[in-house]
């Protein structure tokens, strides 16, 4: 048995292609765009943090420069040692310098051998402030050697302080002493604490030992708190810069905030300027963007899928219309009109299909007309021939010898077949032309069927076939044309007799189902194959095999039966098993 080919769904194919060509590029573009946006934002964050760090560093440098420049004193005299200058004058100068520098807690003039000679102090508890020898102090040693000194940051209860030391030079630019000053870093803190990045980003300053000098985020840590336990901070304190781009620059800080870390060390004082920007705040814009992007993508995806569905439907609908039209034509429905309103090549194709149907219909009508006329014109001569042959054989025109009788009997048989063929062809022609006359009315079914069965008793007996009619107990009234019912039954019994080659039984039974009167004609003939069953009720179709070779027939009987039964609002069908026999059934509505 040949395998039935399965066809895939064209609409699914169109849909898949549209979705794939729409969605995949969209996804690729989206991912590339998002990656680009995030990378760019990360770089922006890094740049912004660097700018802030740079700005803060500049402020600090300026602050320190301003202080140290004030303390770099040149005296317009030429003493060997500052101690050679009058104490009152030095006190006056010291006071002036203290005021000029600002934020000075204590200023001390130290002669070139390390002894303090003038001290103006706001922090000493003892008045006058004690003057000591500080030759062992780092500040003195460095300043007297010609280098400016920036001491470590110390944390007092009043805020961070640091020591600066610079040289006092005479007119000849010889170092004749040192100025040591303690400055408060509170003003620096006040200025830098205003620095913000975004809404939550902040900057802080760490001294060379890892302690917090100040932070623009007051909650970050206490002033003076040692933060060197944080590896990132320790790393900057050790002189390594961070720009916020490395993986380790994103960390959870001591406040348990996830931040982007950036930092740089000021080499002069070894202070680290660090910026931390909470990740959430820094990427808020991107997050909002991603959220919007995802929504747009989702909507676009839905639009693509939706429009693909519609487009696929638009493409497939005309094809389906054409396909349906082709089906209808193959069924013989030449009145079918294909309607495609796409206004394009497909609509043109539909119109061409309709033109083709029109031509087919015209041809069909011409053929039917020819067929009807031909059969109608044939019927009269064959009927007259049949009458003359009968009359000759009955001896109306004289006695016939044996040889003549045999020839004439053969001619009569052949003519009988021709009569039957013409009759059937005419019936088909009428049916197709809609000219078949059927008058459906309440009739007594059993009576009609009984008459036909009775007529076939003898021919059946001749073939040694038992014709059994299971007659219902009472008469049944159905809606049918009695003449046509007889024609159907005649055809079915005739076929049963023809295709039962050996002796057997033909059984006619009835049943009533769903307000329908069903008649079964069951034979024990040769049976019909499944393949033949499919075309059984098609005109001119005949079962062709070795067994049916000698059986005469037109191939129109079952087609006519089907046409008649359908016109009487009934149905006809058959069941068969090859070699065991067939059952032909038809139903007609009860009256």
């Amino acid at each position, binding site marked *: 048995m040949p395998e039935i080919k399965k066809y895939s769904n064209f609409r699914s194919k169109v849909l898949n292609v549209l979705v794939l060509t729409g969605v995949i590029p969209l996804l690729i573009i989206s991912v590339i765009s998002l990656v680009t946006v*995030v990378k760019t934002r990360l770089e922006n964050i890094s740049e912004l943090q660097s700018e802030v760090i740079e700005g803060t560093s500049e402020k600090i440098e300026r602050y320190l420069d301003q202080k140290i420049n004030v303390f770099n004193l040149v005296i317009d005299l030429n003493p060997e040692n500052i101690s050679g200058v009058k104490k009152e004058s030095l006190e006056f100068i010291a006071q002036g310098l203290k005021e000029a520098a600002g934020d000075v807690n204590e200023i001390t003039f130290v002669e070139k051998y390390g*002894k303090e000679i003038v001290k103006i102090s706001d922090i*000493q*508890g003892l008045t006058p402030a*004690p003057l000591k020898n500080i030759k062992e102090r780092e500040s003195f040693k460095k300043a007297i050697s010609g280098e400016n000194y920036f001491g*470590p940051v110390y944390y007092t*209860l009043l805020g961070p302080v640091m020591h600066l030391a610079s040289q006092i030079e005479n007119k000849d630019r010889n170092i004749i002493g040192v100025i040591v000053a303690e400055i408060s870093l509170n003003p620096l803190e006040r200025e830098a604490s205003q620095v913000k990045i975004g809404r939550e980003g902040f900057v802080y300053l760490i001294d060379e030992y890892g302690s917090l000098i100040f932070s623009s985020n007051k909650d970050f840590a206490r002033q003076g708190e040692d933060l060197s336990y944080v590896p990132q901070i320790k790393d900057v304190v050790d002189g390594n810069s961070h720009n916020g781009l490395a*993986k380790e620059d994103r960390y959870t800080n001591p406040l348990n905030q996830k931040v982007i870390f950036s930092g740089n060390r000021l080499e002069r004082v070894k202070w680290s300027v660090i910026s931390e920007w909470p990740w959430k705040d820094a990427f808020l814009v991107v997050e909002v963007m991603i959220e919007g992007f995802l929504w747009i993508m989702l909507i676009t995806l839905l639009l693509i899928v939706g429009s693909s569905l519609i487009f696929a439907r638009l493409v497939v609908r005309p094809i389906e219309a054409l396909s349906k039209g082709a089906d209808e034509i193959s069924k013989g429905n030449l009145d079918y009109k294909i309607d495609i309103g796409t206004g394009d090549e497909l609509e043109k194709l539909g119109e061409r299909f309709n033109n083709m149907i029109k031509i087919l219909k015209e041809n069909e009508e011409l053929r039917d007309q020819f067929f009807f006329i031909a059969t109608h014109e044939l019927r009269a001569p064959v009927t007259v021939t049949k009458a003359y042959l009968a009359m000759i054989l009955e001896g109306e025109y004289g006695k016939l010898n044996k040889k003549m009788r045999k020839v004439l009997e053969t001619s009569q048989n052949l003519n009988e077949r021709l009569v039957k063929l013409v009759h059937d062809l005419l019936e088909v022609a009428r049916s197709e032309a809609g000219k078949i006359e059927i008058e459906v009315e309440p009739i007594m079914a059993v009576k009609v069927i009984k008459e036909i069965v009775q007529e076939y008793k003898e021919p059946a007996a001749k073939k040694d076939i038992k014709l059994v009619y299971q007659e219902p107990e009472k008469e049944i009234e159905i809606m049918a044309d009695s003449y046509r019912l007889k024609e159907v039954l005649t055809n079915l019994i005739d076929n049963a007799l023809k295709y039962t080659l050996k002796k057997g039984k033909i059984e006619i039974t009835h049943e009533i189902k769903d307000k329908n009167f069903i008649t079964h004609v069951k034979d024990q003939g040769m049976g019909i194959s499944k393949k033949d069953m499919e075309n059984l009720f098609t005109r001119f179709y005949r079962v062709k095999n070795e067994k049916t070779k000698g059986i005469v027939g037109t191939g129109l009987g079952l087609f006519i039966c089907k046409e008649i039964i359908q016109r009487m609002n009934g149905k006809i069908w058959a069941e068969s098993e090859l070699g065991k026999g067939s059952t032909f059934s038809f139903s007609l509505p009860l009256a």
Partner: protein
Amino acid sequence: MREKIKKIISFLIVLAIISLTIFYSYRLFEGDIIFDIFFNVFKGPDQTYQKQKNIHLYDNESVSVNKVLTRVYYLIAKDKSDSEISNWEQIFEESLKRVSDFYELQFDFGMEIDFQIYEKLIFSEYETDFFSDLIANDLEQELEKPHSESETIKQIIQELENKIDEKDKWGLEIETENEAHIVNLFVLELGPNSFEIENKEILGLNDEKNNSLVLSFIFSDEKFKDFSESIIAHEIGHTFGMPDLYSYTGDEIKSAGLMGGGITRKIKSNYLEYQIKEKMIDY
């Protein structure tokens, strides 16, 4: 059947492509900020912070001073029984509070230092001259061996042991089982101008144990009032083993902080030197 197998194979191929794409995307972006943002997670390096520091004596790492209790006694010489500082309890309390704040800041809030002031005045059986002699001797000794032994402190402890009722648990023996490191601070009343004894200035004394002595004039004399708290902090510093950062023979100072020249600073402007802190803190 063939159709079904084809479908299954196609499905498996698509599944494999998707899985590989996800896998390599994950590998590519793992730990990257893009990955973090897409999946709203933050995967920085794991970090746990060990902030707690161990603070110990300057010269003995095995004795922790993360918690310190300073017990304060006010002892009055027999001949100065009517010279006690008025409101002494309040003055001591306020001064000691500032000393406490100072140390907490200097040790990065890792040191908790409490004070308890013995609420009664303790009157000595000895007069000012007796203590002056002892102090003068101690000052002589100190030049040779600083903060080693102090006869004055020994005498005071001996006297206090007899006078303080044991029942109120104010004995002077160090309670080693106590969690806090205990320091005794004796304020000795020898009357005004007692800072110069036999032409030597005296601000405080220590022994090699945990005892300190300051003279009461630091609270009452206008000259010392402003830095009395620095003097106390300085002497307590010695009980932690901190050395002086100035010379005993001349006027040389090695530092402007508390253990150096800073002893005369106001406490609020004072600080502890890094060279000392570094030796006392285990990072």
